[in-house]
Each structure stands twice: as structure tokens, then as C-alpha cells.
């Protein structure tokens, strides 16, 4: 069974939590006791309807302020697949959470209030979805009930959004526009009769049809080694296997491989998954690989195919999103973690800072703080084995860790 990961973004009052509550409600994913708690909580707030947004606004502070403040994960299933929603906040100060929620998503769901149209936050959401190269973009024009389900209003918003898309450097391969009312469930799980002029799929029907290439055949084979397994027991006396999760592409038994950074080569002898022997390991599978010969490979090494190995990078230009209260300090040494491989890295230069709401460079911006997005030059103490994010996203991202606070201060995308 497949898993589809969705990230949702929206501004404070555009009804995102209500939409998610509605998806859960319409797929029968809310158990009776939670439903009763919802009725009771709605009544306490003096509402004459059941407020589905209360289902996902989890933390106490949020219940008090009526807003979402962190990434929350929500699950529902259809007979077709399992869905994971990373629900992220939409206010200005929480760009970092939006990037976090988007980092694992295959679908980005952007909400627009039909009355307000495109707002500053829409630019931000679209920019982040583009930066992370999320393949599927769904634009839900919400609160259609408050504009009398007007087709003209919907078309105007679609047109405005297309203009925004035209200005972007990366365009999602698929962008879908759906007019909805999350409060009344119009076009959420089922087709709306009130919006009869819209001939397309409802949101859930559209999500159900999204398909993926799980063989990931267009991407090069990359296997970051997490650990070496050497049981030294009687039954497995000479066993030496490399444990890891295939980052991208696929490996077959018999493939000629190269190990980085040692650059020694060998051949895959076996691919094991617990007691099973596999012929092939595909992207995202956790396996143990054994080799025909003993070569220098340990935690942090990467196995690739001999004819398609990544470059050893030490001088890197990257787009980054800053995620910490403490500003970026040019010249400071951070830890750079690429996949599981950690090296020391010095930020050489802050090249540019982008205004994500206009997609323009910020003139004279000489510093980078929380929620800023820009470009840096960075030098590592030892090579990393990354691909450009635009070529192979699964092997093109890294995080920066502050050596003193241990915080994850930034995410970077190798340019």
C-alpha cells in the first residue's frame, strides 16, 4: 500500500484546519468519542455548528489563540492508500515550519480565501513549494460559499495565480485548481452540486489519482552507509554488511559500485532485508548490502554505481532557509549534515537574500535571520557526495547545525 504525503499551508483564517477536519470527517476517520468531544468543545465556544478545525488545532496555546503554531501530522486512509498530512502554520514568522512540513511532501496544498484572493502568504507558499520542487500543487479556492459560488471570482483567482507561476524559476509539473467550501464540504470528498459549473474532480478524488514512479528510474543510484554490520557470531563469522536506506535510484546484485570518499570499487554480492535476499533495492528501502571484496567503507560513506558517481564537493553554493533565532554569521563554522554524513563547514559568503513575496533580491541586505531565504557560499572540511537539488532532490539537501546550541539552524539545497 502506498503512502502519499501532503503539506498544507494557508493564512490564519482561510480555513485550513476546517478543510483537514472535513477530509477526516468525510472519510469516516473521526472516531465517535473524538466526535463527541468536538461537539462539546464547539458548544463551549458558543458555536451552533461542530467546529471541525478544533480537531487539528492541538496545543493548549493554540486553543486559546485560535491559531496553529507548529507542524502537526494527521493521518487518514482510503482503501486506495494511506495519507499523511503535515499541517503547517501560515503566519509570517513561521516560514521555517512551512519548509519543514514541505520537505517530505509530494503534494503541496495551498488555500486561498475566495474573498481575499492572492495575498502575501500565497507568494510565500508558492515560493517554498517551488524551492522544494514539490511535484504536485493543488490550489484550493476556499470559502466559495461566501462569494455565492461565483465562477467569475474563481476564474479571476486562477488567472492571478497563473501570473505568479509564470514568474517562477521552477514550475510544478502539475498544478490543479479546485473551488471548495470546507465549511460545507463542497468539492472536498465529493462533487459539489452547488458548484455545478466546475467540471473537474473534488479534492479527494484528485488526490486519489496521483501516481508515482517508485522505481525512481530517472535518478542516479545513491546509498548512504549508516553503519557496518559485523555480527562476529559463529553462524555469521565473516559477515560484513553495510546498512542503509537507498536515497535514490536502484541497486542490483552484481552492480559495479564505487565507495566514496575512498573511491575504491567492488561488486554487490548480496542485498539483504532481514532474513530475505533481494535481487534489487529501490529508493527509500532500508537494506543491508554486502560486497564481493573488502573495501574501505564505513558510516558516512556513500555507495554509487561506478559509471554514475556524485562529485566530491568541498566548495558549495546553496540556497538556504534560515531557521534559528540567532542570525547567520558569515565566517562562522557550523556542522553540515548531508543525509547522515556530518562535516565541519564554514560559511564563506552570504551571496543574496530573496524577498519571497516578490521573488526579488533584497538590496543591501547583509544579514540573514529567522525565516529568511537566500543563497550562500560554504566550504566544507571534508568532501560531501551531493547532487544538485534540481537534479536529484533526495541527495541534494543538507542541514546546518550550530556547534554550540546543537540546534538545526538552516536547511540548504545544493545549487
Amino acid at each position, binding site marked *: *500500500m*502506498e*503512502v502519499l504525503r501532503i503539506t498544507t499551508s494557508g493564512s490564519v483564517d482561510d480555513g485550513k484546519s476546517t478543510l483537514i477536519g472535513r477530509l477526516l470527517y468525510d*472519510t*469516516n*476517520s473521526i*472516531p*465517535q*468519542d*473524538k466526535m463527541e468531544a468536538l461537539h462539546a468543545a464547539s458548544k463551549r465556544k458558543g458555536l451552533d455548528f461542530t467546529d471541525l478545525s478544533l480537531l*487539528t488545532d*492541538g*496545543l*493548549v496555546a493554540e*486553543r486559546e489563540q485560535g491559531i496553529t*503554531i*507548529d507542524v*502537526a*501530522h*494527521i*493521518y487518514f*486512509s*482510503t*482503501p486506495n492508500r*494511506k495519507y*499523511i498530512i503535515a499541517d503547517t502554520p501560515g503566519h509570517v514568522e513561521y516560514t*521555517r*515550519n512551512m*519548509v*519543514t512540513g514541505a*520537505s*517530505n511532501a509530494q503534494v503541496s496544498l495551498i488555500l486561498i480565501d475566495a474573498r481575499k484572493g492572492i495575498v502575501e502568504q500565497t507568494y510565500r507558499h508558492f515560493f517554498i513549494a517551488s524551492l522544494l520542487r514539490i511535484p504536485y500543487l493543488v490550489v484550493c479556492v476556499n470559502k466559495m460559499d461566501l462569494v455565492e459560488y461565483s465562477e467569475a471570482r474563481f476564474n479571476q483567482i486562477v488567472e492571478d495565480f497563473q501570473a505568479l507561476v509564470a514568474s517562477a524559476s521552477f514550475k510544478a509539473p502539475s498544478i490543479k485548481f479546485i473551488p471548495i467550501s470546507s465549511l460545507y464540504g463542497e468539492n472536498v470528498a465529493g462533487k459539489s452540486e452547488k458548484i455545478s459549473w466546475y467540471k473537474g474532480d473534488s479534492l479527494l478524488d484528485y488526490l486519489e489519482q496521483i501516481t508515482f514512479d517508485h522505481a525512481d528510474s530517472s535518478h542516479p543510484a545513491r546509498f548512504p552507509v*549508516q*553503519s557496518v*554490520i*559485523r*555480527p562476529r*557470531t559463529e553462524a*555469521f563469522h565473516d*559477515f560484513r*554488511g553495510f*546498512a*542503509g*536506506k537507498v536515497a535514490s535510484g536502484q541497486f542490483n546484485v552484481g552492480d559495479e559500485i564505487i565507495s566514496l570518499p575512498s573511491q575504491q570499487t567492488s561488486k554487490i554480492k548480496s542485498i*539483504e532485508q*532481514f532474513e530475505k535476499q533481494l535481487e534489487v533495492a529501490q529508493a*527509500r528501502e*532500508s537494506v*543491508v548490502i554486502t560486497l564481493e571484496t573488502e573495501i574501505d567503507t564505513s*558510516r558516512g560513506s556513500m555507495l554509487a554505481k561506478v559509471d554514475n558517481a556524485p562529485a566530491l564537493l568541498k566548495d558549495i553554493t546553496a540556497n538556504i532557509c534560515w*531557521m534559528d533565532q540567532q542570525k547567520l554569521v558569515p565566517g562562522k563554522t557550523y*556542522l553540515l*549534515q548531508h*543525509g547522515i554524513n556530518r562535516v565541519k563547514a564554514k560559511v564563506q559568503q552570504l551571496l543574496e537574500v530573496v524577498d519571497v513575496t516578490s521573488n526579488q533580491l533584497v538590496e543591501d541586505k547583509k544579514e540573514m535571520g529567522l525565516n529568511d531565504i537566500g543563497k550562500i557560499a560554504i566550504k566544507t572540511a571534508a568532501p560531501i557526495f551531493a547532487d544538485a537539488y534540481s537534479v536529484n532532490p533526495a541527495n541534494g*539537501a543538507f*542541514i546546518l*547545525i550550530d556547534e554550540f546550541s*546543537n540546534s*538545526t539552524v538552516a*536547511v540548504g539545497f545544493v545549487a
Partner: protein
Amino acid sequence: MSNKIQWEFPQALEDEAIYILRETAAQFERPAILFSGGKDSITIVRLAQKAFYPGKCPFPLLHIDTGHNFPETIQFRDWLVASLGLELVVRNVQDSINQGKVQEETGKYASRNALQTVTLLDAIEEMKYDACIGGARRDEEKARAKERIFSVRDEFGQWNAKMQRPELFDMLNGKINIGENVRVFPISNWTELDVWNYIRREKLEIPSIYFSHERDIIERDGMYWPASPFLNTTDEEVPFRQKVRFRTVGDMTCTAAVISEADKLEDIISEILEAKISERGARIDDKRSEAAMEKRKQAGYF
């Protein structure tokens, strides 16, 4: 949604959990598995066994024994440890009571559930564990929906929802200062149904109380409580015999039974799909208030 039963386990979840366990072994000096004897921690043990095969599971099991466990759970724990050759560390809430660090609750809702946090934090300090692997899932409860996979705790075991590290892609940052520790949640993205389908696929043994059996119970607040010497009852609360099973394994004082004939895994899974009550709805400890779980998390419970 149709009621067609989904027996299939999403394999991506196992691959993700194994990756997380391997990162835990590599990034920490002294990691341990928090073992309750429930289905989620049994799942974690299986994943750890698979992650390092043909090597051995590198984590000891830490069990915080409240003294109010179902005897079936303890029997199962000892059998599992022996059959897989695992290391088991047990610390007792009774010792914390004897040391005067915590006080037994009184009244008919008395339970040791809140007390075990102190015993757990003491055990972490004593054993110098820097990472504790737990079977918590984000779908269980609203406060858990915001939990990270590597969740950093301060010296007092406290969780700060506003100061969490961002987790991007599958990159895990387990760097901590001395005295801090990390709670690791490899099955964060699993639902209750995923866990049951996994147990079925892997043919795992689980404690017998998950299956339908006859037991003395009492009725209180519309729920069925297992009769036991640990439960303070009133004169009106007369135990009666009933076929029941438990959807979660907690203390005998805070785990409610459901009336059920399900005595096979397949029947349990069908029952969950039709269930009218969510899993934690049968946990009396969460009912205390809407924010009950979040408050206990801040105090260091899971």
C-alpha cells in the same frame, strides 16, 4: 469511505522506522528501548531485531514497573526477553514511593500512571541513557501529533513544544549537551491499524489480554474497569464476569476493557475498523482533561 478492510501494511513505514533505529544506534552512546509490554513497544523490538540483523539488537529494554501491571504483561515481557536474548532493566515505582520521591494517589481514581515519570527520569539518569526509544504514535492524541522523531528533553525530561528542532527530509539531528537526552519515536507515522497489520504480517506474539477472555470487571462512568486489588472501589461497584479484551496495555487502574468476542488478530483488526471509540478513549488517564496528555508530556512522560 467504503468499509473494505485494509490488510496491507505500508512497507514505507517499516523502511523509515529501521532507518531511524539505525540512526539512533549510530548517533548516541547509550540508547535504550522504553518497553511497556504493549503492542507498540513489541513492534519496536521487532523493528530493532530486523534493523541490525544478522547482528544483535544493540538496545537494552527499560521497563518502568508500576506494580499495577497486568500479570499477563509481565509474563509476556519475560518470555520475549528470553526468546530474543535481550537485556532487560526494570525499575519500580514502588521504590520511588519508598524513597519518598512520589506519593501514592488516593480516592477511587487513584493510579500510579503520573508517578512513573519520576521513576523513569531517575532510571535515565542512573543508567546514563542518552536516547530512549518509545512506541508513541502521532495519531494517538493531539499533543503527540506535533512530536518530532528525535525529541530533545532537558535535564528534567521536559518537552518544550515551541522550541522543537525542525526535522527536514529524513535528516535527524541527535546532537545534545551532557545531561540532556532524546526521546526517539520510530513509529511516529504509524496508525493503530498499521501496527496491527504489521503484527499480523510479522506473525508477532502479543500479551493474551489483547484477545477476548473472561474477566471480572466493574462498570464506572460508562466504561468497564478490570477488577484488581489495585483499584479502589465503592460498595455499589460489584464485579461481574464478562468476555472482554483490551485495546491498549497500561496499568490495571487506568486501562478500560471493551466487550469483545475477538480472539484472533483478524477479528481484532475488523473490530478496530468498525470501532466507535478511538484507542486512547479507553485510557482513563487521558480523560482527566482535554490538555491532559500535553501537560504530562511537558513533565517528561513520553
